[in-house]
Structures are given as structure tokens and as C-alpha cells.
């Protein structure tokens, strides 16, 4: 059995709602088949729950094993470093998380808020939020950059706003099975963060031939004009579909880069920043001069069906 405790800090509950949408594996499957014991989950407590207090005390006293600690929400440190914008029984959640983290075999940040600070840390960061082990891009959050859990891993960052349902349940299944979880430079599991959102986007043929939309509601690519960050964002949105059905970019909504530490960007989220006609941020690793040459060639080669935007995404 792997004992799991899920705590919400500065959160909208969206990661819990996303978790309920997971289907491969589903939450009930984690319980039935993967030996996850839900010590506590705010929306779904097994057994005679409502026992968070007693549980927390037992974990801190070392009387209750804690295999997986999941944190959902920004770590709120305000006002004035007290953490009391997000209290738990007269003390700060911030302090409670720090104590529980020391006891956990693994600590998982569920969502961008817990990983990097997220939407609550957007300027002016009214509640002085940060992530568990990052403050936006900077290593070191509530816990210092060198911190390791009892199993020797840093906080596992399942970023996303919300985190992808199946990325959450698959990671939990991997931890419960004792499989190795390899992390990237932002401490995200490579299994879910080694793919751009652009990969698998059904608008890719438009991108390929440099056919870009300038208005919303169309069929073509949104990267050049409409703020889409799909080519610069690592996530499984288009390779493991949302709710088993689709993704934002497929539905004509730009990728807002919600798995990145700087989400939400501090500029117009529906417009691409550009140098001349070319986006300021190019697809990961691309040279500007080469990209411009490739784009003009590509546009020349575009077939009519793509130029005329007759292909459904």
C-alpha cells in the first residue's frame, strides 16, 4: 500500500477536479488496483475521514507512514511572511506543508501553483505566493533548491493549470509501483514533459505551410498572431487528449503555456509578441534566420486547400 495525503493550499480546487476526470488510470483504479491508500483527499475521503487533524499529528509524530504527499495550490507566504492568508487552525498552511514534507517519501506538486507559484503569483502577487521548490523560474521556493524527500527526489512538479488528469494518475501509479520517475530541469517527470503542445496539434499542417490566422474562430495556426505558445510549451495536451476528447489548440484556443513556470505571462495573452513579422519566441531551439527562410519557402509550397483554409482542424 502507498499512503497518500492530499492537501490544498492557495488553490481553486481545479487540480482535484481534473483528477476526478482521469480515466487512464482513473482515481478509483488507483485505489482498487494500484494499492493507493487515500489517507485524505479533500473531496473524496475514504473510511472514517474528516480526520485530517489526527492524521497530520500522527504523520508529524512519526506514527503514520506517509508515502506520497500531494500539494495542490500556491504556497501563500503573506501577509508579511506569516502565511496567514492561508491558515489552518490558527497556524499557516505553509508551515504545515514544510513539516509534512519532511516525513514524506515523495512530494508531488499537483499543478503550476504548487510547482512554481502559478496564477496567484501573477503581478502584483498580492499574497506573496511561491511554489514548493521554485519561485517562478528560480530554484528554491518554500523548500530550498537542494531539498530532497526521503526517497532522495526533489519535489516532483506536475505543472499545468490544471495538471493533466492522466499525468497525475499515471505519476501516482508509477510511484505506487516503485517505478523510476526521471525529471527534467524544472523537476517535471520527463514521461509527460518531453513533448511540446505543438506535437499532435491538428492545426499543424497550417503551421507547416506558414498559414496563420489573424482572428479567432478560424481553422489555421495561432502561433504567429494569436498568442499560442504550443511550440514553446512542454505538455501532453495533444498526445494524451483532455477528457479523452480534445485539447485547447484543437478547439481554437491558444496554448497559454500553463505548464511553464512563468504562467500566466505578464502581457496580452491573446496576442503574439513579434519582431517584424516573426514571433519573438520561436519554437524551442530554432534559429531566427533559418526560421524566416524556412517560413517563406514553406508558404510558397502551400497547397490551395491549406492556403484557402478549407481543412478542418
Amino acid at each position: 500500500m502507498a499512503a497518500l495525503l492530499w492537501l490544498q493550499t492557495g488553490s481553486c480546487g481545479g487540480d482535484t477536479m481534473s483528477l476526478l476526470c482521469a480515466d487512464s488510470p482513473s482515481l478509483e483504479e488507483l485505489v482498487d488496483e494500484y494499492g493507493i491508500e487515500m489517507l485524505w483527499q479533500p473531496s473524496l475521503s475514504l473510511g472514517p475521514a474528516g480526520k485530517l487533524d489526527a492524521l497530520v499529528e500522527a504523520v508529524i509524530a512519526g506514527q503514520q507512514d506517509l508515502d506520497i504527499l500531494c500539494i495542490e495550490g500556491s504556497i501563500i507566504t503573506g501577509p508579511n511572511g506569516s502565511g496567514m492568508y492561508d491558515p489552518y487552525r490558527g497556524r499557516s498552511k505553509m508551515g504545515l506543508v514544510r513539516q509534512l514534507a519532511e516525513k514524506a517519501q515523495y512530494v508531488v506538486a499537483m499543478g503550476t501553483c504548487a510547482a512554481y507559484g502559478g496564477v496567484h503569483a501573477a503581478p502584483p502577487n498580492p499574497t506573496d505566493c511561491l511554489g514548493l521548490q521554485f519561485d517562478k523560474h528560480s530554484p528554491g521556493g518554500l523548500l530550498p533548491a537542494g531539498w530532497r524527500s526521503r526517497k532522495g527526489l526533489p519535489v516532483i512538479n506536475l505543472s499545468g493549470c490544471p495538471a493533466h488528469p492522466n499525468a497525475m494518475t499515471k505519476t501516482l501509479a508509477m510511484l505506487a509501483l516503485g517505478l523510476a520517475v526521471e525529471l527534467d530541469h524544472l523537476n517535471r517527470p520527463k514521461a509527460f514533459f518531453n513533448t511540446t503542445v505543438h506535437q499532435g496539434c491538428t492545426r499543424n499542417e497550417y503551421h507547416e505551410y506558414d498559414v496563420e490566422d489573424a482572428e479567432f474562430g478560424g481553422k489555421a495556426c495561432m502561433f504567429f498572431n494569436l498568442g499560442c505558445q504550443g511550440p514553446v510549451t512542454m505538455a501532453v495536451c495533444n498526445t494524451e487528449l483532455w477528457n479523452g476528447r480534445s485539447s485547447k489548440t484543437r478547439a481554437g484556443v491558444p496554448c497559454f503555456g500553463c505548464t511553464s513556470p512563468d504562467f500566466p505571462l505578464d502581457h496580452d495573452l491573446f496576442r503574439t509578441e513579434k519582431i517584424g513579422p516573426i514571433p519573438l519566441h520561436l519554437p524551442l531551439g530554432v534559429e531566427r534566420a533559418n526560421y524566416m527562410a524556412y517560413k517563406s519557402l514553406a508558404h510558397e509550397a502551400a497547397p490551395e486547400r491549406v492556403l484557402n483554409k478549407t481543412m478542418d482542424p
Partner: protein
Amino acid sequence: MARRTIQIDLNRVEGDLDFQLELEGNTVVDARCIGSLYRGFEQILVTRKPKDSLVITPRICGICGTAQLNAAVLALEQIGRIPVPPTAIRIRNLCLMAETVQSDLRQSFLFFTADFCHPKYSQRGFYETARAAFLPFKGSVHRGALEHSRHIVEIIALFGGQWPHSSYMLPGGVTAPANSRHIIDSLSILNKLTRWFEQDVIGTGLDNWLALETADDFFSWLAAKDAHSDSAIGLFSLIGRDIGLHRLGFGTPHMLSYGAYDDPDDAETPPPQRKHLFRAGFLDGDTGELKPFEQAEITEHVRYSWFQPYAGGRHPFQGQTIPDYQPHSDRYTWCKAPRYQNKVVQCGPLADALIDGEPLIRSLYQLEGGNAWLRQFARLRRTARLLQTMRTTLHQLAAHPDGPHMVSPVEKEIPDGEGFGLVTAARGALGHWVQITDGAISRYQVITPTAWNASPKDSEGRRGHWESSLIGLTVDDPDDPVEIGHIIRSHDPCLVCTVHLLDTGKRLTVWP
């Protein structure tokens, strides 16, 4: 009589809630509802580009982000005087309804009915039946609700890309059309959910169920067949009434509804004059009179809230949200106290159904008043109505295959000005009030349904709805007041509550 204070913590989606209750003997004599989490959304939005609200505000709430998105886009459309084509209204409505069905099923069967499995009831005749149906992860209805609430939001993913947290409603429409593949996929999802709902939740066909129009109809129906009394709604009603929930938890008699789902046949009329599929209004609980709703009559008080004080109440366009945390004062919450015509009001599915004129809910209300059982019952009654309305909406979409989903061309920038967006979220009246100056958001005020219901006292010292619904309640065991859990959960405080009790340092737990 011995007087003591107990504290009850609630965990929920929109933030954390505590209740502090004063008991004399076994009776609640005072209640303070405490929103303990502050996140500062209204500050984050100021200085941003107007459309950024469509990305930021869905993140206010993980369970009703679609409703937040709709409120945000309606406010921008009002400011920019941007029309919306009927197809876009239908797609928005469909997604809003799917989100509400999701929320109502989860609230009812993941959060509310689990209480019936409390050990307190182990000697009651219903106990084993309740466990077989409602026990978390084990009960048949709990498992069914887990599965089917997951599927219904796939409809939102088909049109908006994902649930939760997408931004597919933009000024002038939605980002993707309703193609025939998506319509048939949605119908299939709806068919599957409807089959489960008929078989397990209501134990009869949707049409038969919706044909029940009076309290007598309902009670006769309940007794008529095992399939009815053994259905989830049958068990919920029999058990809920067995333990007296139809006599508890009334709260304020005044009800508010902003109206639900813009009428696509009235797309030409801009909001707020545009007709709704379910009517807006104010039900004066003192006179029983139903009056038109006027958004100008809304104010918010901060006398007992941790915000920089101002006198009396302010309309959201004059609202300010400047945190001023004073834990050792008589101020006690991060919620403001919204009032309508200076009255304490409640919102949610019960208020919506009464104001719209849903016959069965009206009849039950006339018989027994707005009690905890009826509040929960109204939520499930709504699910049946929405399943029917979603089907109609999908057929209308199929009948207009070439209807535009976005007006074109849309002005790229939203002009300076002010506007509001009012919608009915799963928990009731949700409003966004926005002002734009020099091309950027200069004020953003949100009043959530929970703000109405979880309101603290106002500047005149009048308690909010949840607070007043607990006054006078007698609990069997003050060390384990499960009755309070039933009542609080009937109000749908966003997520299952963790109910604890604190008494001079001794901590006890209320289940679950």
C-alpha cells in the same frame, strides 16, 4: 446553561471555510461563517489587458470555471457592444449546462449523501442500504457518479478543448463551430448519462419524472414502486426525511436568481435585457412576491470582513478590495457581505427553481418551506431538466449547421467603459463587474454564489444565509454534530467539507 464555542472547518473548491458556532446546551445560538483563504484575484486583474480576464477568471474556481468564463466574456461584450450569434449562445449554454450537471452529480453523490453512512446511523434501518449506495468508492451510486460526472464534461472538451479551465468563449462567440461529429459525440455522451440517470438516480424515464408537478404527485410516485424508492433520489428522500432534513436549515427567506442560459432566439437583444431559458428575478420571502431583478440594487458590505473599511454597502462598480487582515478584531472573514435591496438573500438551485416557477419545487416549498432536504432535492431535479435542455440544444445546433459561431470582424481591442456579466453557475448567482480605462482593466469585482450564501454579517449586523440557517438548530451530540454537516453540505459549499470540532483544546471529528 453552559455556553461554548465550537469550530468547524470546511474544505472546499473556492477556498477554505470555517464555521464558528456558539452553543447553549445543544442549541446553536450564534454562527460565524469564516472564509479563511485570501488569493487576491481582483488585484491580479487590474492593469491587465481586458481579454486576459478570460484566462485568469476561470481559475477562480475549479468546479465552475465555465461559468466564470461566461461572466467574464459577457462583461466584455457589454462594454464593446459586441453581438453574439445564436449558434455561439447555444454552444455556450451547452457547456454551461454540462458543467452544472457535473457539479450537481458530484455535490449530491460524492459530497452530500456520504453523510448517511455516518456511524451515528448504524442502528437505523436504512444504514446498510445507504452504505451499499453511497459509501465512498464502494457504493454503487458513488461509483456511478464518479464515472458519469467524468464523462459529461467531455462535451465541454469537444467544444472548448478541455475541462477544467479553458478560454473558448471570446467576445463575439466561441472559438470552434459545432460540427456534426461533435454533435453526435455529445449526443452519445448525453445518451449514456441519461440512461444511468434514469436507471440508477430516478428509477424511471426522464419524461415521467419531469411530469411530477405537485408534492402529492411526488410522494405517491415515491411509494408506488420499489424502483422509485430504491433509486438514488428515492433513497436520498426517504433517508433525508427520516432524519428530519425537511424540517431544518431554512436560512433567509429571500431568493435571488440572475436567470440561466441566454435565449438563442433572442440573440439580437443584448444582455442584460436578453431573455433567459430560465427566468431571473427576486422572490421576496416576506411577501411571497416575485419581482424583476435589477443589478443596480446589489451592494457589498465589509464591516465584518478583512478589507479596508468603508461605510454601509457599495455597488460593485464602486467596490474596492484592499486586504486589511485584522485577526484580533471583530472582523472575521475574507468574504464580503453582498446584499440585494439591502436584504440578506440566498441563491442556488432552490432559488432558481422557485423563481423560474418549477411546479414540483414550488409545491414542495409551499408545503414545507426552503429546508435542507428541498435545497438538495432541487439540485437533482435540475439535473433532469438540464439533461432535457441539453438534448434540445444539440438538436437545434444540428438543425443550423451553417450558423456562424463567431461574429466577424471583431474589433481587436475592447474600448474603455464599464460592463457586467451575470450568469447562473451551479451554486447560483455569479457576477463580474469590469471597468476599463486606457485600454486596461482598472477595476474588477466578482461576486460568487458562495459570497452571497456564505456572507458574514453586514454593517447592520444582519447574519448571512448560511449563518442564519444554523441558528436554533439542536444537535444530538455537540461533540459530533453531524446535523450541522448535513445542513452545511445542503448549501453546496463547493467541495466536501472537513468538519472538525474544537472544544477547549480537545479535538473531535465529525464524519466524513
